């Protein structure tokens, strides 16, 4: 059975909405500014810096690291393996999803971003994260 011609504009609209929702990271000036700032820092630290990588961000997120606090070996310990899912703090409080598609306000407040990278990199890695690592992480979350 063929869809009725009258339904076609509606279907096109639906497809358009889905596509828009699938690329939420692109049209957010605050997040772009945070990424641009991190890119400048990464470039200053390494002249060979050639852009952020969602794949490196994924690895950073999923890896069980050594050197951090024993109860938080990985980002996924609290955020779960799926960035689109809700996580839980060690005492049971819900953490809203990290993936931008599931939580469009992520990575739009520079102070908040700085605070949580500082805390959580120390907790999970036992050190601060580099600008490249932060940019990779955000790029990964924008791709999910």
């Amino acid at each position: 059975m063929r869809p009725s011609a009258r339904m076609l504009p509606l279907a096109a609209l639906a497809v358009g909405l889905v596509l828009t929702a699938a690329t939420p990271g692109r049209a957010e000036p605050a997040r772009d500014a945070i990424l641009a700032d991190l890119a400048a820092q990464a470039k200053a630290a390494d002249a060979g810096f050639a852009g952020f990588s969602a794949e490196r961000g994924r690895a950073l997120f999923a890896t069980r690291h050594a050197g951090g606090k024993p109860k938080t070996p990985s980002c996924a310990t609290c955020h779960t393996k799926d960035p689109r899912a809700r996580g839980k703090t060690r005492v049971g409080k819900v953490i809203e999803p990290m993936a931008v598609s599931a939580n469009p306000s992520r990575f739009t407040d520079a102070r908040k971003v700085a605070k949580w990278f500082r805390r959580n990199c120390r907790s999970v890695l036992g050190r601060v994260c580099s600008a490249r690592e932060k940019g990779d992480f955000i790029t990964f979350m924008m791709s999910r």
Partner: protein
Amino acid sequence: MRSLSPLFLVFLVVLGVAGTRPPAASAAQPRILADPVANDECGACHMPYPPRFLPKSSWKRIMANLENHFGGDASLDPETRDHIAAFYARYGAERGDDVLRITETWWWRRAHRYEIPTSVWTRVGSPANCLACHRASGRGNDD
């Protein structure tokens, strides 16, 4: 065996219930007490605990070492930290056990030592998850 008099039973019940509440607050304090900054910052990870749950001296030590906060890094910028420290310094309990964990205070241990099966603690994840059982706690009312 001699049976217990009803009066003695009432006495036992009263004895059991007494001492299961946090100490009364120090400064004149509204029944529902909350600070918006503390709610946001502390509440990002756990229930924002009412100041009277611990003595002022304990809050002071906690706020001075947020980098090592019960197994995590909870550091804040100095301005925010000072604001929250002032809130707990003002409304914290005047006296109490010199402990850092609420679960180590006498009133908490007394309130939770009976009747709570191990399976409940497993389900709620941590005794710090007050809200799993005490639904009103997050609004500053710890009943």
